[in-house]
């Protein structure tokens, strides 16, 4: 068992509830693999720095995990196959801080959400 950080981007043209569904699926998977979800963060709809699969925005979700390395590989495959997830990144970490990540602290989400409501 080791600690991982998983961030994935859900395509923006999907209903907001779909983001929760994807997150739910990840959590289920982790539970099945006898891992543990230590932390979840919704970074919300963000503008991408460059287009991914012709999308210019995406819903970012960040998850801190404690899980087996083999299970992580399976989880990555699931994300790869998922049509809703356009990008993901898993990083092995030494320790998981309990504080919110920098992204939550310095959120320029307010500006992005403003754009979206227009």
């Amino acid at each position: 068992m080791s600690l991982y950080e998983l961030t994935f981007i859900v395509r923006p043209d999907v209903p907001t509830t779909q983001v929760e569904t994807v997150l739910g699926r990840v959590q289920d998977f982790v539970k099945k693999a006898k891992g543990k979800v230590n932390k979840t963060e919704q970074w919300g709809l963000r503008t991408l720095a460059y287009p991914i699969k012709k999308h210019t925005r995406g819903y970012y979700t960040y998850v801190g995990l404690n899980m087996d390395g083999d299970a992580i590989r399976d989880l990555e495959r699931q994300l790869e196959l998922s049509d809703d997830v356009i990008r993901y990144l898993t990083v092995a970490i030494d320790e998981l801080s309990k504080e919110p990540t920098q992204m939550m602290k310095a959120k320029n989400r307010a500006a992005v959400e403003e754009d979206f409501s227009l």
Partner: protein
Amino acid sequence: MAMENPTKGRKRREDGDRPERDRFANDRYTPKLLGKSYFQRKKGCPFSGPKAPKIDYKDVRLLQRYVSEYGKILPRHLSGVCAGKQRELATAIKRARMLALMPFAGKLDFGRPPRTAATMAQRPGGRPGMNRSSTPAATPETAAE
């Protein structure tokens, strides 16, 4: 004659005449100093020391300062980052690029102004007006939609 010479030599060494002359020469020799003085690098590595920020791929605002106008990772001799931290920084920037938090190349992230003294000063905490200033590049896009 034979008596004077040794005393003179001893006196010179005691006064420290020579080092003083050398310092002067270095100051006058500007071409060699120009490269260094241009960037005014006085501080050591910004990531070493007790109060150093943690290098993290999620901290885009921090990483942004170690990237050129065109999104390229700045060389160490410009940023002053030490070798080990530069390696950490490079992987962090590459991870941020993977997550589309930072651009690989070309345009600026959200049309943010390039690294200047002014932008560096804005960093701590971030004023409420800061988010607004990052919008202009995004607005034409949304207007089109």
